[in-house]
């Protein structure tokens, strides 16, 4: 029997009055499959240009970016959530997984600590905000890489990718419920790719 109601809802994109930079990352079983979906999405954007009335979007196809990275296909656009037809095209390629991010960022976060300190001990010597930041980063990005910094210092380094957490204008990190001000913590730095 055919089910009358859609059986899967990966994301519920609800158009809102607030636009954001959305990034969809679809992972396929092979690079060849990803290439097919990339081509489909490019054709999708061309079709949108030619038949705008057939699409329910608030964005211009010229403003969308599609590219392939190994067996992943990336789709990026600024929208108030009008992504249902893009998601549908992505799913027709049968991805292994699809991730959706808002204001996607890839960051390297570093903190300078005395040589030989583990993150567990570094938590103890910093102030309360630093301890919370180290805890959040370790929970969400895994154990930091320890990098030699010359002299008596070392750097604890986390690689982060996901929803936007760094405001480069304010130079602040938003880690869960914590607002971490890098201007007040000069031993910290963020590199944004």
């Amino acid at each position, binding site marked *: 029997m*055919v*089910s*009358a*109601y*859609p*059986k*899967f*809802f990966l994301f519920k*994109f609800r*158009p809102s009055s607030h636009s954001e930079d959305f990034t969809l990352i679809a992972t396929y079983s092979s690079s060849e*499959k990803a290439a*097919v979906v990339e*081509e*489909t999405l490019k*054709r*999708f954007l061309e*079709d949108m240009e030619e*038949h705008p009335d*057939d*699409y*329910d979007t608030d964005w211009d196809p010229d403003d969308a970016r599609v590219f392939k990275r190994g067996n992943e296909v990336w789709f990026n656009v600024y929208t108030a959530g009008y992504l*249902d*037809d893009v998601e*549908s*095209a992505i*799913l*027709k*390629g*049968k991805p292994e997984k699809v991730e959706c991010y808002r204001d996607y960022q890839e960051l390297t976060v570093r903190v300078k600590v005395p040589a030989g300190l583990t993150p567990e001990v570094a938590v103890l010597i910093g102030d309360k905000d630093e301890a919370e930041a180290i805890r959040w980063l370790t929970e969400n990005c895994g154990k930091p890489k320890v990098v030699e910094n010359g002299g008596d210092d070392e750097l604890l380094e986390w690689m982060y990718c996901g929803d936007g957490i760094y405001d480069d204008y304010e130079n602040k990190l938003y880690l869960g419920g914590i607002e971490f001000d890098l201007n007040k913590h000069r031993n910290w730095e963020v590199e944004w790719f």
Partner: protein
Amino acid sequence: MSGAKRLLEEIAVMAIVQLGREPYRSLIKRIVGSEYVCVDEETYKQLIVREVVNRVSVDVTFAFPPYNNHTVREVKEKALKILRKCLERDRRIYLV
């Protein structure tokens, strides 16, 4: 169950019934047979139904009190129009 939720379910059923009829049935077989589509016929139909339901969900809300901006019939007609547009779009994209 609220009137809006019931109407969304009715629209989903209406869409799936339409997809099983000609000319959509043959078109879907061709689209699913395309090298660009990797899902089976059933999954493909579910994706189309999902698009239709999502695109009329706001109109459905406004078809009931206290809004009453549209009639149920208008919303169903819009859903059928969206269904046709989705299939036409996929024909252009996948059957090249």
